[in-house]
């Protein structure tokens, strides 16, 4: 009895003041989108399916950054460090352990755990050292760049872990894809149907889980810290612990992205941690509207798709148009483009109701 | 008698974005007058002051300074016409020294006025003592003194003060009232101030307007002001 009401309370956190979207209208829309996403492969060719998996791969990192930056107010410019750490861990582990017996899944967990651990160490150093604001951003960026530069020069054969060569700037390849052990023979998750559904399911789970997290007490405190850390502490919250936890969770999600990406393309390179790579998550999250999970999710996906389409169709003008889109977005939609659309529709519907 | 009108505010509307606060404010200040504005929390006093100096755009109505329409001018242009403004909550420049804060105050006039710094130091000795301290580390009351001193540095012909007594020790509150009255006598400084401190209102104001729900609802004469309970009644309910 007590148990079920508790579960109900936790589930109720799916809606709350920290997330946009509530009520039957939102959830039926959500269900519709989900349905479409599930049906999508029936109408798309396998290139499109695999390409969408590729887009999905990055969204975990975006959601994680939304938690750290949008909710927690700590701008981490170094999420790709954790992306890279998990990616290399996955590579090293799977190359050494192989893909039998579900070991790739173990490697996934271990790699994500590894990036969470690194985030805990770095986060302890940052938050317990009272580093905040841009300083936080630059220190995290520095960490990423150190990793990138270090990994870039590991070309020599001396940089080998077990049978896995780190292989420097050229990147590490040949790691197996994620493989699910199955009675009728293991299912290798190439960028195709099974991987699509697995990634989609993960994405939905992470999205809903984060919604509950940010609407819980934890989320309230996180937002309070963003708004006024001193006040939050003076209400009795150990702000450093909360910031650290958000950082670890967000970075673990970056790590998950790293593993999925590596498994998707059987490749990881130090460039994934470089300056450009490090700036991208910030762009995705900012464009959609970083202070909400849903707008982050939709915004990041939209940016990824639009940028790829531009690259395909706008030839040499692609980067110019992308840049212009970013500038215009920031100017016309201060809280993110998806957020702006949401607000506009809300205003419209309210006006209609008023009539 | 337009030549004695320092400030004329007519049917002024304003607020924040879509949210109206001021709903047709009418009042005036004559040359050489000190006028108080009183009212409960949240009725729009600070909003009025911000609209007068130009930090909020008016949504309708007119503001005239010595007969000249100023409501279309930007805040810095209004300041250069000689209006000084002390915001509620002080807003000193936190990472600049006390002296630097004072020097910024001179931009109202756009020139350096000989002897002004000494005068301000005389009014507020703590500012001289702490000339090199960063303003953000001054105590609350010290910051309030700095904010007032800063605006005097520009030798304005009219000042808008938003709750100048807030956070200031009683004897300095009296001192500030004295300074304002003296400047008013000596230089004809016009003063519009928002205040809750009855002692200060009585020590300074020649007239008083009562504000409620974005409107001026009463005007009190000097004689009315002598009646403590009368003021108190306007501040309550």
């Amino acid at each position, binding site marked *: 009895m007590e148990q079920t009401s508790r579960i109900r309370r936790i589930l109720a956190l799916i809606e709350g003041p920290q997330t946009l979207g509530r009520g039957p209208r939102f959830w039926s829309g959500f269900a519709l989108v989900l349905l479409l996403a599930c049906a999508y492969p029936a109408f798309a060719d396998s290139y499109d399916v695999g390409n969408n998996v*590729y887009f999905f791969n990055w969204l975990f990192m975006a959601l994680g950054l939304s938690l750290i930056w949008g909710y927690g107010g700590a701008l981490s410019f170094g999420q790709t460090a954790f992306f890279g750490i998990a990616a290399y861990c996955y590579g090293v582990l799977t190359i050494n352990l192989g893909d039998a017996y579900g070991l790739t899944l173990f490697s996934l967990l271990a790699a994500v755990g590894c990036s969470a651990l690194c985030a805990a160490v770095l986060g302890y150093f940052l938050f317990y050292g009272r580093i905040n604001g841009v300083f936080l951003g630059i220190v995290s960026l520095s960490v990423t760049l150190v990793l990138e530069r270090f990994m870039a020069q590991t*070309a020599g054969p001396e940089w080998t872990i077990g049978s896995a060569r780190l292989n420097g700037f*050229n*990147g590490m390849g040949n790691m197996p894809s994620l493989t699910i052990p199955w009675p009728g023979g293991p299912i290798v998750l*190439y960028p195709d149907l099974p991987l699509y559904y697995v990634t989609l399911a993960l994405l939905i789970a992470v999205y809903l889980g984060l919604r509950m997290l940010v609407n819980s007490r934890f989320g309230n405190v996180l937002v309070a810290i963003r708004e006024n850390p001193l006040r939050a502490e003076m209400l009795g919250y150990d702000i450093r612990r909360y910031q650290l936890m958000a950082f670890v969770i967000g970075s673990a999600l970056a790590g998950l992205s790293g593993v999925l990406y590596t498994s998707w393309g059987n*490749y990881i390179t130090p460039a994934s941690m470089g300056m450009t790579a490090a700036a991208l998550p910030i762009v995705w999250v900012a464009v959609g509207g970083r202070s909400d999970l849903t707008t982050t999710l939709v915004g990041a996906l939209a940016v990824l798709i639009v940028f790829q389409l531009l690259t395909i169709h706008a*030839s*040499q003008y*692609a980067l110019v148009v992308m840049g212009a889109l970013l500038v215009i977005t920031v100017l016309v939609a201060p809280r993110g483009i998806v957020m702006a659309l949401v607000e506009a529709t809300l205003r419209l519907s309210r006006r209609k109701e008023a009539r | 008698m337009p030549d004695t009108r320092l400030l004329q505010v007519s049917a002024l509307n304003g607020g924040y974005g879509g949210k109206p606060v001021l709903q047709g404010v009418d009042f005036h200040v004559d040359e050489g007058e000190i006028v108080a504005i009183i009212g409960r929390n949240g009725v729009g006093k600070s909003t009025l002051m911000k609209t007068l100096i130009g930090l909020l755009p008016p949504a309708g109505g007119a503001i005239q300074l010595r007969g000249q329409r100023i409501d279309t001018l930007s805040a810095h242009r209004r300041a250069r016409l000689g209006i000084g403004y002390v915001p509620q909550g002080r807003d000193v420049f936190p990472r600049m020294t006390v002296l630097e804060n004072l020097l910024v105050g001179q931009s109202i006039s756009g020139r350096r006025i000989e002897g002004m710094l000494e005068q301000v130091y005389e009014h507020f000795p703590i500012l001289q003592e702490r000339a090199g301290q960063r303003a953000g580390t001054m105590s609350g009351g010290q910051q309030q003194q700095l904010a007032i001193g800063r605006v005097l540095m520009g030798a304005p012909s009219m000042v808008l003060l938003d709750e100048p007594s807030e956070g200031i020790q009683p004897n300095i509150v009296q001192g500030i009232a004295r300074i304002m009255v003296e400047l008013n006598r000596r230089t004809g400084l016009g003063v519009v101030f928002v205040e809750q401190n009855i002692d200060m209102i009585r020590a300074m104001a020649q007239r008083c307007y009562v504000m409620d729900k974005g409107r001026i609802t009463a005007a009190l004469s000097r004689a009315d002001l002598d009646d403590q309970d009368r003021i108190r009644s306007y501040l309550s309910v």
Partner: protein
Amino acid sequence: QDAKPIKLGVLEDQSGDFALATIGKVHAIELAAEEINAAGGIDGRPLELVEYDTQSDNTRFQEFMRRVLQRDKVDAVFAGFSSASREAYRPIVNQFDGLAFYNNQYEGGVCDGNMIVTGAVPEQQFSTLLPYMMEKYGKNVYTIAADYNFGQISAEWVRKIVEENGGKMVGEEFIPLGVSQFSQTIQNIQAAKPDFVVTLLVGTAQASYYEQAGAANVNLPMASSVNVGQGYEHKRFKAPSLKDMYVTVNYIEELDTPASKEFVKKFHAKFPNEPYINQEASNSYAAVYLYKQLVERAKSTDLAEIRKVIAQGDVCVDGPGGQMCIDPKSQHVSHTIHLAHVKADHSIEFPQKWDGIKPYWLGDAGCDLTKSDPSAQYSPSNPPPKS
């Protein structure tokens, strides 16, 4: 009746860091395709190019390699400048069993049946260059190299060949990519007093070395496998900062042969604004003709059939720089290697050339794609496993 076109994917960096060296590669492919189509295509089938700009970004290579193979269903892909980009797309080419041409000088060692490499490799460039330099200038050598796979492996080759020829390495320094300031390096070189400097600098930032060394009056002869031929530094920097630079190339636009002159003429007729026709543009151009011959002889675009033709060991074309033949074991290409000497006024002379230099190392080391396909990259310090 309309014959079904043969589709070629072209994935090259047309923007970003590498664009300087790679836009010309795209143009060269377009030129070759136009010529072939004008002459009736490949076995009557026209060539159709599917081009994407990979923006000097490895992830774009991954995205678009999948796209050309899965969506556009191209018959072959011409892709990549940096080795990292090649390694990024190689797993995808393997997965879909496609055929990719890597038309770029690089550090060597790719033993992969899905790849044909038309660029020169270290043994071709250094076995010719270094003995010449040591003969002419002396045996003390200092290497500065980009600090990544290409630089490290190339430096390893330099070390090996210098020592084999009785020379001595007096210094070796690795420069991280993106570094543009060289004062300390210049001083280190002066302290080591080499007879000449091997410069294996990659990327536009590192090229700043030449200007800075010139300004500090270092005045040492230089040798390279990668500069001038790729990034035309002699055109971009003011003389005499590249004075006495020696580079072994399989082509550059100054090459004074009828074939080269003809190529330059055609190129400029089609692309009048091309700043420079570098070695990789020539490789890309020749690669299209190699592919034409492969398909015509295989009578198919099927990879297995094509590889049967390669295995015959006689697939050759005459490229702008000389004859190029595919080595069946490594699927790399033999070249005529020209020694380019940059003079004080930055004009180029060619004191020597070597015909038919083979990409021997991979085959000798144990890569034999006619027998097995490990789809791996090796290096002298990490050779193929002996079977």
